[in-house]
């Protein structure tokens, strides 16, 4: 079994920190896409929040404005 990803050498903080930024962006993009699909499939905010491991308020604050007028429960 291979490692899921490699950690940049700690002696190159610039590369390691840039990787952190890129990973956060990728995670954000994945979260947006996944929440979009979940909402389209009828998931509630409570279910999405539970799956993401955050509060319903947190997920609502971050994503609800994108679904005005077609708000999930």
């Amino acid at each position: 079994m291979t490692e899921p990803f490699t950690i940049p050498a700690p002696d190159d903080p610039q590369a390691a920190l840039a990787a952190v930024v890129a990973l956060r962006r990728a995670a954000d993009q994945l979260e947006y896409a996944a929440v979009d699909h979940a909402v389209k499939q009828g998931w509630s905010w409570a279910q999405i929040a539970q799956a993401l491991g955050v509060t319903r308020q947190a997920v609502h604050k971050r994503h609800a404005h994108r679904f005005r007028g077609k708000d999930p429960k």
Partner: protein
Amino acid sequence: MKLRNPIREFKTMQALFTGAEAHARALGDELPGPEHLLLAAVDLADGSAARACASAGLDPAAFRAAIAREHDAALATLGIHAEPSASAAIELTTPAGMFRSTGQAQEVFQRAVAVMRESGARALIGAHVVVAVAELEQGTAARALDACGIDRSHLRDAAMAEMG
């Protein structure tokens, strides 16, 4: 932060942050950072940022492409190779009247206002923003400028020259 003409400054700020947000979304970022502020400054009607970039040899389209390449290259150091579709634009609507941005973008904006005041200018222009972004030594904007072969101090000088 005291502004000389609050209404005019608000309009410039609105154009800057609305533009930065559009650039952020197009590049797949949730919130605008300094790199998006630079792109938005180039779009400002006063033209000073566009002239400063041209004078320093920075092509905004090449800068935009370099931002995406830098992120892809950084992910590649983790062994993650993003599909082009993974960088798709983030679709979101922002509550009206709100300027959302990263803390670093807000610091860059505050620095731009400070540059304006230090220069004795009466209004905020794109060149002030370029100075503030060019002064950053780390982060995506600095990396993308470096990747474009731009000497950041040269870009700063070019922006200072636009301030008359």
